[in-house]
Structure formats: C-alpha cells, structure tokens
C-alpha cells in the first residue's frame, strides 16, 4: 500500500487525539487521547521508515527504534499518569478537569 | 587615578557606613565628602597641568569590548565639583538632624554620590549605563524609606519611569555597539560616526527619552514634582541639584557627539518640547501653594531652558548651558536648604500659611532673597551668565523660540518673587512667629552658596574656561 495511506491515517488519528484532548473534560479520556496521539506518531514513524528504506536509506530502521523509545516513554507516562489520576480521584472523587478550578483563585 | 579615587571614596565609605552605629555614619559621611571635595580640587589642579593623567583604563569585560574607562574633561570635572560641593553642603546642613537608621541613610547617600560621579566620569558606554542605573537605586531607597506620606507609590513611579527610560537607552547603546566597527563600548568608537544617518534618526529617541525623563522635559516630567515633594529634603537636593544634570550631561556627552545627525534632525522638536515645558512648568509654579512643589516646577522650567539651549547647535548657548549646569545646581540646592530650614522650623509647606519670617529670622530672609534672585538670573549673580548666553544662542537659532522662552524668565520672576514675598514678608502669624534664625552650620552652608553665587556672577571666566574644551569638542562633532 502506498505510504500516503499510512500518513493520512496517522494524521487523522493524531487529529482525533488532539481534538479529544481539547474537547473532553474527563482526565482519563484526555489521557487516552494523548495515547492515541502517540500511537499515531508511532504509525507515522514506521511508515516513514518504510518510505525512506524504499528510497534506499540504510539507516531507516532508526525510526523504528524511535518507536520503541516512544513506547517506553509512553509506558512511563502511563504509570505516572495513572498514579496521578488515582490520587486525584481519591482526593476529590472526580476526574473531571473542569471542577478543578480551586487552583484558579 | 584621581578619577577612580573620586568614585571609590564615596563607594567604600558608603559600604562601611552601613555597618556603623551612633554618630559614626554622620562623621564618616562628612569626612568622605570632604575627601571627595579635596580629590576633586586636586583633579581640578591636575586638569590644568596634565589633563591626560585623569584618564584611567582597566580591563573589565574583554569579551564585550567593555572597559572600566573613566576620565574627566572640563564638563565632567565641573559636575564632579558640583557633586562634591553639594554633598558636603548637604551633610553639613543635616548634621544636627537625627535620622532613623542613620547608617542606612548616610550609606545610601554616599552610594548615590558614587553613582553620580561614575556617570560624570564614565568614558565607556556600558560603564556609563551601569552607573546611570546605580545612581538611581540608592535614591529610590532613600525616597521610599525616609520620604513623606505618599512616598511609596510616588517614588515607585519615579523609579519605573527612569528605569524604563534607561532600558530604552540600553537598547540604543547595544545597537550602536553592534554598529561600531571594533565592537567596543569605548567613547572613541561611539563617537567616530559609524552610525548610519537613518539609524540616528530613531536612535535619537531611544537616548532622548531616557535623558528627557531624567531631566525632566515635558511630557516626561510627571514623576518629578511628586517625587520632589515626597522625598526627604536632602534627597530632593541630590535629585534636583545633581541628578537632573545627569540627563543634560547625558545629552552633551552621549547624544550630541554620538548621534549628531539625529540630534540635528530632531532639534526643533526637542526645543519645542523644552519650551513647552518652560511655559507649562512656570504657569503651574505660579499657582502652587506648596513651597516644595513650587521649587520643583521652577526646576522643570530652568531645565527646560537648558535643554533647549543644548539643541540650538550654537557654541555660545552650549557654553552657557554648561555653566548653568553648575550654577543651577548650586542655586537650587540653596533654595532647598532654605526650604528645609523653614520646614524644619514650621513643619508646614503651604505658602499661604507662612509670612513675616523676615522679622523673626532675618538671616533666612536675606539668604532666601539672594538665592532666589540668583535663581531668576539677576545680573551679577551666577545665574545671569548662563541664562544670557543661552538666550543669545536661542536667539540665533530662532527668534520666536527665544521670545517664548524669554516669557519663562518673566514668569520665573513672578513665581519666585511671589514665593519670597509670601514667605518672608507679609503678615506674620502664630506659627511663623516662633521661627528661630539660622544655626551655625546652616549659616556656613548658605554663606558658601552665596559666596559661590556672587563670585561666579561677577567672575565667570574660570568656569567658562573649564568647559570650553568640552564645548569645542562637542561642536566639532556636531
């Protein structure tokens, strides 16, 4: 399949993620949208890696290594993020980011 | 080396003063200012014999092409002289005053002296900027700590105003620095005309605003009357006697030679602003009833005339203006001292509540009259020489300007004499009847001032000679 398909798919996924982050109010859903963004990037990286490999670059596998790094970092983020969300939930019985305006004043 | 000493004496003395207790600060302040005066006189002597030896260069930030470069020319020497005399006089006058946290007060005073001398001696643009700011900080603290009721917002305004102005100047300095072929802040590379004329046009404003705020010129003057009013009088003396001269000095040293074409382009605007300032300040002064504010506005008017004179591109008026730098400083300090004395005695500043002091304190009356006349510029007083030269220069530049500015003289006479009349003549009241006459230290200070007024009024030649070298230099470039 042409690389454009992957590019469009991942851009679409990324945009869905961005929209989700900006529109949704539930911390967990926002977080999932962020993960969606990261995975869109992963897909795109692999697609580009294939593209450049086809174009004859020998170091194109670097992008796939990058994907691994993203996954690891995403995992670390998940770990921290879930812990934070659990903590917030236990503190305020809610993960709605709108009610967290106590900080504002 | 003497030049460095001139900065170091007040600086070190100031720092030491912070740690002193009791009457130590007072004594040290006096000693330091005496020493400064002595050094200044020494420098004056050396200036006649070996002027080059007053230059001092040391490495500071080689990466930037900034040097610790200080030196004294005629104008600088004159202003240093003014500074050392003024501080000495101030310290003598307030010798019998008790200030809360005296060590901080005297320390800050001395630090501001160091900053002022630094400004007058710096021959490196960055150094000049540093001193320029440095002179401001102690004064800010002095006003805020020992000033009147509304001191905090007022001095804050003053600080932010001047700080903003000087930051603009910093941008200008940086721009010129980057334009200079050898990437140096030295005076020489600033004045060698490497700035393109189209750049000079806008750079002029960066500098001019900074200096105009300091002088202050209409419409940048709004901080000034409030600050003068709210500051403790010794600080007001420093502000009006010396600090405003920083602005004028800045124009002569760092604006005209550096951006001659820019100054030429905008001289009309600058003069018009100055003249508006004269008339505006004089009119307000006439209706003022607070004596401190009155003198503050009168200072705006006088400074306006001086700044107008700078931009006339005329050797005569420039020379007159420089002499006036000194004379105005002496006169205004004299006035402030008298105000301080009156305020000390009566605890009021409202002119309408005063009157008849002449009967009870003839000494005050005599000195007030003398100094006021000098301030108006009566012939045979020191003010006359400068004003005459400035007016003649202005006349050559544009007769209409001169005519309007001349109106200022008349107005000055009106409000000054009005003040004199209200304070010392007229009906005395219960309050003014208690006025005691001058004490020894006050008498001494005022006498010195009057002597200076008269001597320079009759024999201004040494002053004119002192500044002539600077005038020539400026005129050559301009």
């Amino acid at each position: 399949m042409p690389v454009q398909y992957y590019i469009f798919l991942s851009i679409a996924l990324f945009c869905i993620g961005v929209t989700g982050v900006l529109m949704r109010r539930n911390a967990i859903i926002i977080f999932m949208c962020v993960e969606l963004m990261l995975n869109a990037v992963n897909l795109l990286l692999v697609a580009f890696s294939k593209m450049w490999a086809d174009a004859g670059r020998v170091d194109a596998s670097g992008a796939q290594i990058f994907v691994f790094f993203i996954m690891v970092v995403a995992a670390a983020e998940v770990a921290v993020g879930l812990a934070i969300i659990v903590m917030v939930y236990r503190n305020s019985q809610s993960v709605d980011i709108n009610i967290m305006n106590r900080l504002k004043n | 080396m003497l030049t460095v000493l001139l900065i170091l004496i007040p600086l070190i003395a100031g720092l030491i003063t912070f740690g002193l207790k009791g009457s130590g600060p007072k004594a040290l302040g006096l000693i330091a200012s005496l020493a400064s005066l002595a050094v200044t006189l020494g420098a004056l002597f050396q200036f006649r014999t070996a002027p080059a030896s007053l230059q001092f260069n040391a490495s500071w930030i080689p990466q930037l092409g900034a040097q610790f470069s200080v030196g004294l020319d005629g104008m600088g020497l004159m202003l240093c002289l003014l500074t050392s005399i003024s501080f000495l006089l101030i310290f003598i006058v307030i010798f019998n005053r008790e200030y809360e946290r005296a060590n901080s007060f005297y320390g800050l005073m001395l630090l501001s002296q160091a900053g002022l001398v630094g400004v007058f001696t710096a021959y490196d643009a960055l150094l000049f900027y540093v001193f320029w700011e440095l002179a401001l900080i102690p004064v800010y603290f002095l006003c805020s700590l020992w000033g009147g009721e509304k001191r905090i917002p007022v001095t804050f305004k003053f600080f932010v105003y001047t700080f903003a102005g000087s930051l603009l100047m910093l941008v200008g300095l940086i721009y010129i620095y980057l334009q200079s072929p050898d990437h140096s802040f030295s005076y020489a590379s600033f004045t060698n005309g490497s700035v393109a004329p189209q750049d000079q046009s806008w750079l002029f404003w960066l500098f001019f605003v900074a200096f105009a705020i300091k002088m202050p010129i209409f419409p940048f003057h709004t901080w000034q009357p409030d600050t003068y009013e709210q500051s403790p009088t010794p600080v007001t003396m420093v502000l009006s006697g010396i600090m405003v001269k920083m602005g004028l000095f800045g124009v002569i040293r760092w604006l005209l030679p550096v951006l001659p074409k820019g100054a030429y382009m905008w001289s009309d605007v600058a003069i018009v602003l100055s003249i508006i300032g004269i008339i505006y300040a004089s009119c307000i002064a006439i209706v003022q009833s607070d004596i401190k504010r009155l003198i503050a506005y009168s200072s705006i008017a006088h400074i306006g005339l001086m700044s107008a004179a700078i931009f006339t591109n005329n050797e005569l008026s420039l020379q007159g203006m420089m002499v006036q730098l000194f004379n105005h400083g002496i006169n205004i300090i004299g006035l402030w001292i008298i105000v301080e004395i009156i305020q000390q005695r009566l605890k009021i500043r409202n002119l309408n509540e005063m009157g008849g002091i002449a009967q009870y304190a003839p000494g005050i009356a005599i000195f007030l009259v003398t100094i006021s006349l000098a301030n108006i510029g009566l012939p045979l007083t020191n003010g006359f020489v400068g004003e005459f030269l400035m007016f003649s220069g202005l006349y050559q530049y544009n007769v209409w300007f001169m005519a309007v500015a001349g109106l200022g003289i008349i107005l000055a006479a009106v409000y000054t004499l009005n003040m004199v009349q209200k304070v010392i003549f007229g009906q005395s009241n219960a309050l003014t009847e208690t006025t005691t006459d001058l004490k020894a230290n006050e008498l001494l200070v005022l006498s010195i001032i009057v002597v200076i007024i008269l001597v320079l009024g009759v024999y201004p030649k040494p002053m004119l000679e002192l500044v002539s070298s600077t005038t020539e230099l400026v005129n050559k470039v301009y």
Partner: protein
Amino acid sequence: MFTDTELLSATTPFSYFPIVLQLIAALGFVGITMLATHFLGPKRKTSDKLATFESGIEQKGNARQPVAIKYFLTAILFVLFDVEVIFFYPYAVNFKELGWDGFMAMLLFVAFFMGGFFYILKKGALKWED
C-alpha cells in the same frame, strides 16, 4: 495479490489476512450465539432478579468504590516492567549476531531492571500482607 506465495511469505501485510478472516468468524460466532440466547431464553424479570447479588442480604450502596491501592500499584508496575520485557524480544531474536557485546549491554539492562525490581521490593510495593 492474494496468491499463495504472497500470502505465505510472512513479510507482507497480507499474511495477516487469515487472521482477519478468523476475527470475522469469531465475531460472527459470538454475535449469533448472543442473539440466539437472547431470543431463546425466557424473559420473566422481577425486581429481585434484577438486583445485584449480595449473598442474599439487601443490596448496600454502589459497588464501584475504589479498591485497594495495591492493585493499581501492581498494574502500574506491570506496565513498566512489561515494556522492559518487550525490549528483550528483539534482543533475543538477534541475540546470536550481537554476540558478547550485546550480551554485556543486556547484562547492564538486566542490572537496571533488577535495580528497579529490588527497589520496589524493598519499598514494599508488592507486600500484600499488612
């Protein structure tokens, strides 16, 4: 496209095609069974029947309360360690080509892994008895 050789060589996306088929089959099976049981079974609903079961006593409150934090901790630790385990896979597959150098690098990795492991053990993250 869709020829034997293409499908059998394990490098193209098409070798995953049978999996898609199986997914369709599984979905179909599950869906049909679900529908079947839905229509075949009797429907006699009573409120007692629809109440959640609590060993015969009255239902109390909502069940969805936070459970012990230990479970979350386990989940978080799993995420972290699982990702580290994933790193072993590409290494294991290419292990012979990488030789002793790769082995040393892996030893370092294992050392860090064990460092983290030891840390959480000492921190009591896995201590279930209070």
